[in-house]
């Protein structure tokens, strides 16, 4: 009886964890020649100012506002860093004068619209919100 209760409890936690986990689609402008991309390369494109696509084209990363749950999840999955750690990271970039964080858009619909309309753009949205205006180049689990 005791073991059964533990097993059920563990299963419940597992279900809850799975229910909360969002699959995040990394999206790009449909003309992007890149078909798929590694997590490390995605991290470089978002974290390093003036980074470029493999092949040399200019990349324009878009971000959701600081404080957004999806943004925190995105960087957690991408880099393992929490929101405060990311703020510290961007403070280094901004105040050393070496670059700037990605441009912000207000929502995931705006993210889809901006990435679809901007050559070289890269962004992220929940997988279920992806539509055919953008190209999915990676899925973060």
């Amino acid at each position: 009886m005791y073991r059964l209760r533990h097993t059920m409890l563990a299963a419940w936690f597992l279900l809850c964890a799975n229910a909360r986990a969002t699959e995040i689609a990394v999206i790009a402008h449909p003309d992007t020649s890149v078909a798929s991309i590694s997590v490390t390369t995605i991290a470089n494109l978002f974290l390093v100012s003036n980074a470029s696509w493999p092949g040399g084209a200019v990349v324009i990363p878009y971000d959701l506002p600081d404080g957004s749950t999806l943004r925190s999840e995105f960087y957690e999955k991408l880099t393992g860093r929490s929101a405060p750690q990311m703020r510290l990271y961007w403070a280094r970039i901004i105040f050393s004068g070496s670059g700037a964080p990605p441009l912000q858009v207000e929502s995931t619909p705006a993210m889809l619209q901006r990435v679809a309309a901007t050559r070289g753009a890269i962004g992220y949205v929940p997988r279920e919100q992806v539509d055919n205006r953008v190209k999915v180049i990676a899925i973060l689990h």
Partner: protein
Amino acid sequence: MALRCARVVIVGALFSLGITARSDASDTPAPPDEATRRGAALHGFATLGAARGTDERSGVVHSFSQKRPTFDRWSVDLDTVVGGQLEWRSGGAHTLIVQGVARAGTDFEPDLALAFWRFQLAPQVALRLGRIASPLFYDTDIINVGYANTMVRSPLATYTKINAIDHLDGADLSFMTPVRRWLIGAQLFAGQATYDHYTWDNASVLRARADDIRGIALTAVSNDLKIRLSHTASERFSMRSRDIERLNEALVALAGNVRMLSSAHERQAEYIESLQNPLDSRAVYTSLSAAWSPHRWHLLAEWTRLSSDRPWVGNTDAWQLVMARATGEVTPYGFVSRQTTRRSSSMSINVPAALAPYAATIQATIERDIERTDLSMRTLGVGVRWDFAKNWALKLQAERLVQDVPLALADPATQSRSRSNSALFSIALDWMH
């Protein structure tokens, strides 16, 4: 006093400006029709920090520019700083950035930390002209921004000697390209830097100037790993003051007296004359660092060397190891750091016996000046950073400092080389926008 009050008012206004900007512009998303950056943006940062040591004889400073060392009483001079940054982006290839900083340790004298024009020559190549952040060591470009450092400050043993050079007046050319899973970057820079150098016993102020600086920094970045190597040379690092001028006059007079005794002493006289400006040298700064941030961890290792072509100034080696792990909003950390100065030879003045007492006095003066630049020490510390609200962090830090030469002595009458073993406690509230 009135001047200091005026500076505090200016700094307060700057801080208020930052707060206002925060409330007006915080997290304002880009307009939907904006594909590139265009227009002005205001950022700010501030640290309200207090620190105290446990040794009334031995003080610590953040940099040679700090006017008063921190002893065994709570002081805001070590870490308190406020800064504002104005950026203007053309929406194309041009960016202008101006950053002003005022530190409590310099009586809030406003300092222009950054002022440069950035031109994106190509997608992977950028040129900056003007006053740029110092690329000498791993942390020198954010040395004034407490929020951008996991700890209260970069370890004193590694950074005190270099912190005063927090910017260069000149230019840099940077290049970055992807190579497999890495981003490889190179930064070529050139320029000069000046600062006011306060000696550890507050006996004099020197004007330090590093001219003809040229260097290169290479970086390799791959997600959570960054490796950086930089090598910088200042062909003419000079220190000037009224005391140095008097010393030069004394050396010239001594050389003249040596010549008068006998023409056979010409080489000795020339050597004595060459001792003028004894702290001047060709200075070379080297730094090798690796920062690794796997899931919630932050590990940093850095080795640095400051070498001089004057054997009695010697080479200074330093290293730091930092380890931190974020758990939610709380990040405990620990660090260890050490700096050692080695001189390949001591400076000596050999003169005929009749001039020996005079020469000994001059030699003692020069050796005292050289000792004032020796910051050999080691530190071991722990702390905790609490990001209690967005853009705010509170830090508590305790460290053990063992200084081979006390950085400052409260009682000038007891000035002498001796080892100091003391603790330093710090609390800092950091903010940034």
